[in-house]
């Protein structure tokens, strides 16, 4: 039971790293809190759902489509909202209000469009992909059921989301540390004013980061029907709260700290569910309070600000 809980926590935590990754990237670059983050995740989930329902697109195949679409939508949305917001005296605080409003609008429109009922994609769809990939390695056909890890069986969807989350973290790492745009992004993260003074096109860099942030949220949404039971237009707020917890644990403004935050959250959640199940949903708030009291900058806070 202990090993199962630990492994489940790791897989679940990886998924929550993916959920928080985009939010933290946006905060790190723009110092604004995107309270509509969970709603973009929800939109990504609905896009994957409709791609599957209408065109039988497997969720894994939907990932590049969903990511590209949301990243592209993020660019004009950035120019529409963020530059004006950053001119305000307290953009961080105003971003709460602006994105809360956006969150409400997105939820309302989605409810009108799709109704209030729960929607899902069959879990076997991810199992098929895992089995196909595994079959290529072992050279024969593999069952598309649950996956065994260290003698413990987990739903294929968990493993798929864990792998994609890992790849997403790698993508963000490579973007930040191995591309020119990434270097500029990190420069903006360290000091926006200095970046402007050195001639960096801050808005261009920020717009890309905003687009990538939305794209990552939408990719997390693709796995929401499998990891969060089902999807509804109202799921965004809860997701935003959890992802906010994850990034505060890891460190606000440090996208890679999100991985640590996600793992701490995932493992703690699974242990709570195993041993104090009635109290499991208090965990995000307990962790949030504990981190803010003990280490307000987050577990990786200081290193990042100096990076």
């Amino acid at each position: 039971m202990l090993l199962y809980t630990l492994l489940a926590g790791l897989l679940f935590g990886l998924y929550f790293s993916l959920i928080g990754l985009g939010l933290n990237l946006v905060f790190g670059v723009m110092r604004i809190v995107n309270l509509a983050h969970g709603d973009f995740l929800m939109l990504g989930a609905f896009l994957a759902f409709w791609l599957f329902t209408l065109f039988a697109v497997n969720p894994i195949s939907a990932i590049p489509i969903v990511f590209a679409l949301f990243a592209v939508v993020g660019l004009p949305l950035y120019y529409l909202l963020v530059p004006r917001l950053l001119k305000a005296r307290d953009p961080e605080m105003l971003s709460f209000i602006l994105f809360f409003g956006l969150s409400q609008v997105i939820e309302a429109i989605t409810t009108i469009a799709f109704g209030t009922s729960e929607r899902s994609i069959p879990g076997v769809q991810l199992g098929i992909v895992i089995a196909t990939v595994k079959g290529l390695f072992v050279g024969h056909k593999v069952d598309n059921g649950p996956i065994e890890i260290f003698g413990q069986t987990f739903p294929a969807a968990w493993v798929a989301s864990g792998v994609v989350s890992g790849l997403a973290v790698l993508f963000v790492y490579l973007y930040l540390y191995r591309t020119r745009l990434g270097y500029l992004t990190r420069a903006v993260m360290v000091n926006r004013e200095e970046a402007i003074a050195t001639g960096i096109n801050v808005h261009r860099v920020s717009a890309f980061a905003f687009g990538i942030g939305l794209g990552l949220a939408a990719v997390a949404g693709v796995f929401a029907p499998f990891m969060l039971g089902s999807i509804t237009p109202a799921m965004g707020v809860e997701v935003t709260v959890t992802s906010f917890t994850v990034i505060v644990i890891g460190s606000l403004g440090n996208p890679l700290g999100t991985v640590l935050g996600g793992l701490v959250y995932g493992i703690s959640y699974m242990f709570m569910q195993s041993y104090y199940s009635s109290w499991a949903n208090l965990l995000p708030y307990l962790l949030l309070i504990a981190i803010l009291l003990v280490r307000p900058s987050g577990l990786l806070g200081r290193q990042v600000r100096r990076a």
Partner: protein
Amino acid sequence: MTRYTIFALLVASMTSATAFAQGTGAPAEIKLGTLYASSGRFASISMPVHDGLKLWLEQKNAEGGVFVKAFNKKIPLKLIAYDDQSNNATAATLYNQLITQDKVDILVSDSGSVLTSVAVPIARDHKMLLIDQTGTGANFFTPDNPYIVLMSDPVSSIWPKPLADFITHDGPKLGIKRVAILYSTNDFTGTQANAVRKFIKESNSGVEIVYDEGIPTETSNYTVLLNNIRATNPDAVIELGYAPNDIAFLRNVQDSGIKPKFLFCIYPGLETELLEKNVGGAGLNYVFTYVPSSEIAYQASFGMPLKDYKAAWDKKYVDSKVEFGFNSVAGYTTGLVIESALAAANSLDQLELRKAIFSLSGKLRTLDGTFELDATGAQIGEITPLGQLILDEHEHLKFVTVWPHDVATGKPVYPRP
């Protein structure tokens, strides 16, 4: 002859004067106040109930209103409905608003125990009768509170009796000796879990509860919990949650490869269409559940029978964004009870309305079964038998009723293949 004529005229004039007096005090409309959740966790059980109630109300208004005995005439209904967004705090404010600002004549709660729970004390404080649509939490009904009556669903303290009776009577013969109970900690499923536990323990059948855990209603992932349940090696798993819980639970059962020999959930029966969309026919195959009125064609002595109601529903709600299921029937049943009560009550006084509703107990038969109340206002009629969902050769899910034996339509399949 002249004397008789004068007497007849006097009687006629007195009768018409009484009728005039009754008619003059009549309001232009009867205000019916209610809440619904268009978003959030309870939207999928709230909207069908609300739509069912609206369907009844619009039908009545198309006929010129409902007959109100107190005024001896038909009066149109006015629906005042607010969206509580599945939020208890918002619901509390809106219930207060309906009573104090809108001054509704009839107060109807939102669907489900969670959103009804806040209405119970508010209605009681304001001495308003709460027409409780589907809030079955046992603690809502106490002998000292006359301001609540339950319309649909048996109160949760007796609702799971067919399930517990099946497990304790037929269970041991089938090989069910160890039972796991996993429930969401809210008024509805918490009460159901207490009832199941009590019935099993009191039965002295030798059936043992080997796992008994409560989890938050917001739980959306059950993989670790399922693994913990498996470790206790149960013969039967009973999961008690709302529709989103059941969807997540059953999907996790499918995906994790765990195959409980006996699996019971509430909502595969209550909202079959919704569950099938999310879990699929295979995921619901052989699952035990309640057989609700949306599946049994009860002989209705009042209101539309199930077939006609379903046709009316399909005609009105063509967009199919809200699935038809037990909750759709529950909303319509609420309307029928209100209509019958207004036709029997001598005034719109809240306790008079209660008296009128109680006078229907055991007599009113709707598409939801026989409406029957105990002294506290809890529903003890409209019992839902225990059934098992089976995929037929056309891949359609059908209900096989397995308990009580006198209404059984087939034998249970155990263990689940």
